[in-house]
């Protein structure tokens, strides 16, 4: 009896000791219970504009579409220059770089149960060329397939339908071929965007989309905003399907039970539109969301927050630029008298290279990146920023140099600028502190050179800022660019081609640059392309049509129970690829 009792006591004592020692340890390491383990909740700002993959051109729409629709291939992991097969299981590019062939996987079904076929792939791209909505990403298909500057219109009339349907064909049963107008290296990247998401031909036609006829082409070409048949409905092959979309509130996606790969790790993905920062912050702190969008200005207050995982200083592939307007509208209210008389600037003020250089040498990147960006960014040397193919880290950059600025201002307009002085206003869109600081830095440094220089900064409402930029009213403007694909062409075209988005609005027109850009993109030789982009960077440095302000970096904030995040700048969702995320400790 006794030994047994003793044994009992011994066991009990041992258990007690173990519990006593382990328990506190457990308590200190104990994590809050995982909330909503089967749902991934995102608190972000803004919602999708449309769910039609051929019309959507905003990242909020893209982040939904990338879950619902799938592309032929996609970027591999964190890479933007390596690919994995998705709906295609094999692909090849012809030696001349003009034919792209994809072998379409078997046994994949759309959410409605229809089987995905090569005809669906052909239809997907033809449908986009046919619709060619003016604000859509469709130009990315036209440029490689029909040539730079093309669209569904030739002059005022519609391009023949056969032009559009002959660039992509089904061959040998399960192969689909694209025929390019000329070699176009980033075409493969273009196919990775959500606009490359494959739709179901039969279902589209049932819902009133293009049915292959000329009449339907004419009816559906460039349709009115949000009058697209697929505006609100989806039917893809992706890991999630749309459950509901309550505009301005949330989008709910549910797991596709018949997905061809492993099922998604969450039964539901909920993307909530929460414009108030306070609410998003509290949701994240309380675990009511798994990811919250944190604006750059709020990074500081998130320091030390408990139970949050932060991925810091991720290299965003973006560029913020400051552009000089070569042909200021004479109606501008920002140029004082409009004359070089000390009370204004002439409309051709910025055609003088010395003026542009004087401005550029007056900019202080150190103060700008430290103060306005809280250190979250680097100074770019060329519009081809880090993260794009043909990025070159060894290019020269400008730095703040008052002496050189003075030298250039003294030389400008044959010395008249220095003698008479000038007066102008730099506008920024109100509420954008980063842009405001950039204007103030320039104004302060230029005004310090000569008491006759009077540069001021003034806020404008965003909509009128945009409209004034388009109307050539702003003498200078600041805007940024987010990549469509990760090739130097996407940025260099925007900055330097006469038809490029920003170059056009500053009326920068260098025929040499334009020709070089067109030559580079259609060249199959990567050494030649590298040489041309470096040459273009040199032209930008010498001519200085604008100031390259910053390539920003960003942070991402998750609950610490979210695992599996990696950063790929191509993902339109800031929280990564939900299919590969998990909630666990």
């Amino acid at each position, binding site marked *: 009896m006794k030994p047994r009792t003793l044994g009992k006591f011994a066991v009990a004592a041992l258990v007690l000791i173990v519990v006593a020692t382990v328990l506190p340890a457990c308590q200190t390491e104990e994590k809050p219970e995982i909330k909503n383990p089967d*749902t991934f909740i995102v608190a972000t700002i803004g919602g999708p*504009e449309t769910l039609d993959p051929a019309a959507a051109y905003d990242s909020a729409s893209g982040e939904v579409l990338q879950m619902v629709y799938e592309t032929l291939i996609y970027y591999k992991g964190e890479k933007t220059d390596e690919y994995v097969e998705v709906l295609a299981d094999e692909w090849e590019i012809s030696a001349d770089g003009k034919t792209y062939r994809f072998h379409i996987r078997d046994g994949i079904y759309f959410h409605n149960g229809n089987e995905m076929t090569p005809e669906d792939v052909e239809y997907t791209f033809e449908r986009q060329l046919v619709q060619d909505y003016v604000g859509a990403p469709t130009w990315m298909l036209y440029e490689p397939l029909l040539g730079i500057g093309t669209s569904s219109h030739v002059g005022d009339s519609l391009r023949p339908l056969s032009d559009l349907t002959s660039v992509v064909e089904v061959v040998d049963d399960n192969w689909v071929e694209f025929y390019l107008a000329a070699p176009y290296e980033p075409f493969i990247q273009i196919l990775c965007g959500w606009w490359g998401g494959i739709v179901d031909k039969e279902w589209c036609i049932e819902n009133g989309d293009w049915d292959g006829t000329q009449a339907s082409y004419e009816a559906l070409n460039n349709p009115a905003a949000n009058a697209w048949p697929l505006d609100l409905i989806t039917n893809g092959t992706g890991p999630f399907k749309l459950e509901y979309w309550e505009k*301005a509130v949330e989008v*709910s996606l549910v797991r596709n039970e018949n997905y061809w790969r492993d099922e998604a790790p969450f039964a539901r993905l*909920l993307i909530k539109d*929460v414009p108030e920062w306070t609410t998003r912050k509290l949701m994240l702190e309380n675990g009511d969301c798994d990811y919250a969008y944190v604006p750059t200005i709020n990074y500081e207050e998130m320091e030390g927050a408990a139970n949050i995982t932060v991925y810091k200083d991720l290299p965003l592939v973006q560029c913020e630029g400051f552009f000089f307007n070569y042909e200021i509208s004479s109606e501008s209210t920002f140029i004082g008298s409009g004359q070089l008389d000390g009370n204004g600037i002439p409309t051709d003020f910025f055609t003088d290279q010395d003026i542009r250089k004087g401005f550029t040498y007056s900019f202080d990147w150190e103060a700008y990146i430290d103060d306005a960006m809280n250190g979250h960014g680097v100074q770019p040397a060329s519009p081809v920023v880090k993260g794009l193919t043909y990025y070159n880290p060894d290019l020269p950059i400008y730095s703040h140099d008052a002496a050189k600025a003075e030298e250039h201002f003294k030389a400008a307009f044959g010395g008249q600028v220095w003698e008479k002085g000038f007066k102008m206003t730099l506008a920024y869109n109100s509420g954008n502190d980063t842009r405001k600081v950039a204007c103030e830095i320039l104004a302060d440094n230029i005004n310090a050179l000569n008491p006759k220089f009077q540069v001021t900064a003034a806020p404008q*409402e*965003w909509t009128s800022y*945009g409209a004034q930029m388009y109307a050539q009213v702003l003498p200078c403007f600041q805007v940024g660019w987010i990549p469509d694909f990760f090739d130097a062409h996407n940025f260099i075209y925007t900055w330097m081609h006469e038809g490029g988005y920003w170059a*056009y609005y500053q009326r920068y027109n260098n025929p040499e640059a334009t020709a070089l850009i067109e030559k580079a993109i259609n060249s199959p030789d990567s050494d030649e392309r590298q040489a041309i982009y470096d040459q273009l960077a040199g032209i930008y440095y010498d001519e200085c049509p604008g100031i390259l302000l910053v390539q920003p970096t960003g942070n991402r904030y998750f609950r610490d129970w979210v695992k599996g995040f990696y950063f790929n700048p191509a993902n339109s969702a800031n929280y990564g690829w939900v299919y590969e995320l998990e909630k666990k400790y």
Partner: protein
Amino acid sequence: MEFRSYLIRRLFLLIPVLLGVSILIFGLLQLFPPYQRAMLYVTDPRQLSNIDEIIELYGLNAPVWQQYFTWLGQVFQGNLGWSKVVGMSVTDAIFNFLPATLELAIFSTPIIILGGIWLGTKAAAHKDGLIDHTTRAGAIVGWSLPTFWFGLVLLMIFYGYFRGLFPPERLSTAMSVLVNSASFTRYTHLNFIDGILNWEWRVVFDSLRHLVLPVITLSVVNIAFIMRLMRSSMLESLGRGYVLTARAKGLPEKQVINKHARRNAMIPVLTVSGYIFAAIVNGVVITESIFNYKGLGWWAWRTAIQLDVSSILGFALFSGVLFVLTNLVVDLLYAKFDPRVRLGGGVK
């Protein structure tokens, strides 16, 4: 017969007012330069490259009267333009956001009116007593409170300090998913009522929890207003002959106040129903913007700060027409049921 001619006269008078309302809204629209009015039709920055085409297409350079009739024609077809901020037409947006605001109004209006009447009666019955002084001081404080600040302070305490006790927005995440699921029918889009109809008490409870702070914020200022009105009207009524007679007959004070004095004192309160409506609409914009409560007011605020011209003018037009109609109904009911009102030229 007399009422009918009054009704006809009022309906007839409605036409110039509604026409005037539309001219005023259209006049405001003219304050925007053509390129900004063209923004009403722009859905993507890329379209701005041919902004002149848009101006041409929608006749934004045509004579003003011509533009007015084009615009009015669109309005009559229910086309108020596109609300860029929420990605739907202005008409759809109004119907989409109306239920949330109705829900807020359904809870606030009785609290404002009944609470105000009750407090006003109490104060008048105890004139210069402790209750009177307290309620009057309370009314002055309530009347002076900036609604937007008061709401934020409530949030700071009940959301920040008591970690999410009374949260902003309309529903918590789980309930939002539930009401949108296939098994839940949204009969009215008023979550509170739909919850009852679907026998989902969690939804009812959750929507009530989200309504607490907005309803308080919306009510405080307006209760103060009704209370003051009721008090002075009650004081006047208590001095009237029939009340004195009732008192002289030895009726209990409670009965005198509740039966005789209050009934008549309430008439001025009813006549300001239109004002209360306007005050609630005003309050709704501020309250919903503070609590991120996605109703009409929230939408009006978001569109206003993003210069979404078509939405804000569409909302102004909508609330203007609604306000005119509310006033009409109030006047008609008043005329029908209050024998003291002389019909014909005498009113207004």
